[in-house]
């Protein structure tokens, strides 16, 4: 019997400082055993448990797209015991990984639709995975317009900056980057994400909006999407919750009868409206 609690060994290949504050880093992992990578069969929107022996485990959304090769990337903010330990790592360190877990984004349902990605702050990680997946050469034709609206507090708080700039150059993407407060030299938009969504006004026709960000951003973005004509079941959110097992057993990530770890983390806004407001 396969023991789902045993992490597989991964090596940190690369560590990327994502923000000026240096509290958000991306970690690129490779599996020591190639078989483990094979069984780590994931798609955008799923998460995994990163394990540091002696510190514990943390559930983190997968920031890489499965189309990016054998490595798997996670973007992690320094917050608690495990993330601090991880942040103190150097490339070459061996840590543990188990997963992938959760439903992820409904990739089949997104086919043939216009896609509106709305992200805020460092919640952009699984949205990056999604964007990279959708814009891949062989897959781009399967989707309509792709609109990406992403904001952070300051230019220094934007993650994946180089990629964002490269995406902005592409003619087959509508990319809108905004900051709450501009700094000298900033050439992008200034303003909160909901306001930019309103200004860009992506059409709701045959479209699906995927929204990840701080609660306050989500709170003000949803009404604007409604105004634009998005139905509640065409708006997707990805939730975070404290977790231990990630397997639907330890009992702490439930919202009503739904478990964020196995029924989520991706829920439509229509589903959320039917769930108790306990998240």
């Amino acid at each position, binding site marked *: 019997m396969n023991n789902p609690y045993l992490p597989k*060994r991964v090596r940190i290949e690369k560590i990327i400082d994502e923000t000026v504050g240096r509290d958000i880093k991306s970690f690129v992992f490779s599996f020591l055993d190639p078989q483990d990578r094979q069984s780590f069969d994931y798609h955008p929107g799923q998460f995994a448990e990163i394990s540091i*022996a*002696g*510190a514990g485990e943390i559930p983190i959304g997968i920031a890489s797209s499965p189309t990016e090769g054998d490595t798997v990337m996670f973007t992690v903010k320094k*917050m608690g015991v495990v993330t601090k330990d991880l942040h103190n790592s150097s490339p070459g360190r061996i840590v543990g990984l188990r997963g992938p877990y959760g439903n992820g984004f409904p990739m089949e349902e997104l086919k043939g639709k216009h896609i509106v990605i709305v992200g805020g702050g460092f919640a952009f990680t699984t949205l990056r995975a999604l964007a990279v997946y959708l814009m891949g050469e062989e897959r781009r034709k399967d989707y309509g317009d792709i609109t990406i609206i992403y904001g952070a507090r300051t230019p220094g708080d934007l993650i994946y900056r180089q990629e964002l700039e490269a995406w902005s150059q592409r003619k087959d993407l509508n990319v809108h980057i905004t900051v709450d407060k501009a700094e000298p030299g900033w050439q992008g938009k200034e303003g909160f994400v909901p306001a930019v969504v309103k200004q860009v006004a992506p059409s709701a026709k045959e479209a699906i909006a995927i929204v990840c960000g701080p609660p306050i951003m989500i709170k003000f973005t949803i009404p604007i999407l409604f105004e634009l004509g998005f139905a509640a079941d065409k708006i997707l959110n990805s939730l975070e*919750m404290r977790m231990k*097992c990630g397997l639907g*057993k330890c*009992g702490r990530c*439930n919202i009503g009868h739904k478990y964020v770890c196995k029924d989520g983390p991706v829920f439509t806004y229509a589903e959320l409206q039917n769930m108790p407001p306990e998240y």
Partner: protein
Amino acid sequence: MDTGIITKTNLKAVIEDLMQRGEVVAPVRKDDYVLFASLPSAEAACLDYANSKLSPKGCFFPQAEVLFYYQKEGHKIFEPPNEVKPGYLLGIRPCDARAIALLDPIFDEPRYQDVYYLERRKSKVMIGLACTRPQSTCFCSSTGGSPSDTTGLDMLWQDLGDRYLVRPITDRGRELLAKLPHVEEAAAEDLAKASEQEQAVLAKLPPIFSAEEAFSRLSAAFDDPLWQRIYERCLGCATCAFVCPTCHCFDIQDENRCGQGRRVRLWDSCQFSLFTLHTSGHNPRPCGKERLRQRVMHKFNYFKVNNGQIACVGCGRCIRECPVNMDIRQIVSAYCLR
């Protein structure tokens, strides 16, 4: 033989025979209460008891267990040695056996099978002991159970005074019955007495509410202002969860010693404020009201949505052990009466 009889004079010999065949876990007296433990001798078994202080769920889901040992350097992990001994769980009450059957779909979910639980679970033949003396806190009949319910059991014994009526339930139970020494065929009067006793015990346990009623009433109760009043007495000590036969929430922690250590799983409870606290400081269940509601709703509503049955078996332990006399029967009844 369909149904057997073991006279009490032969009980010791029968338990000794079971002990020859494997480990026997049974109720054992400790100070002024009874707990399930591996029997050191046949005499230690205490089958004349109301119910154990802690439920026997710990036989399959221990309060603390090692998931694996590790070496920090290189994240090397070592699975713990398999110390599970095949044998028998003797003297489990029908309510507690039902509780184990309720835990099975959680740990035996096809996608993520919990090997620790399943190894232990498979290792024991379940021999139940029908309830003949319900306590004032018992309410199994309100939760879909009964004092002689056979759910989760391989064999059920019933105390008829000077003898036990022995009924096999599953193939495992029938196999065991064929092997046991000192078993006589039950006579018609034994069966009649057993049935009469069963009815008499059931009559002492009139249902207070039905599982269906509790489920449907609580479906609409999330925003009910009554939670505010109910929770105020609760201390949030989680004694209810620790004695509960169906509570299965756990925590996972690393215990270090120099460069090595072990990852352990420990019972946890939704009644603790840290249970859902995010590292950011946000807590989806910030107060006792939300936490008590979670426990009641999980048992009587959420669990049934996911698994088809409510997750309370009416053993009454939470009522008996609560330091401030919270009574889950009253809480559920309050919603059923609204």
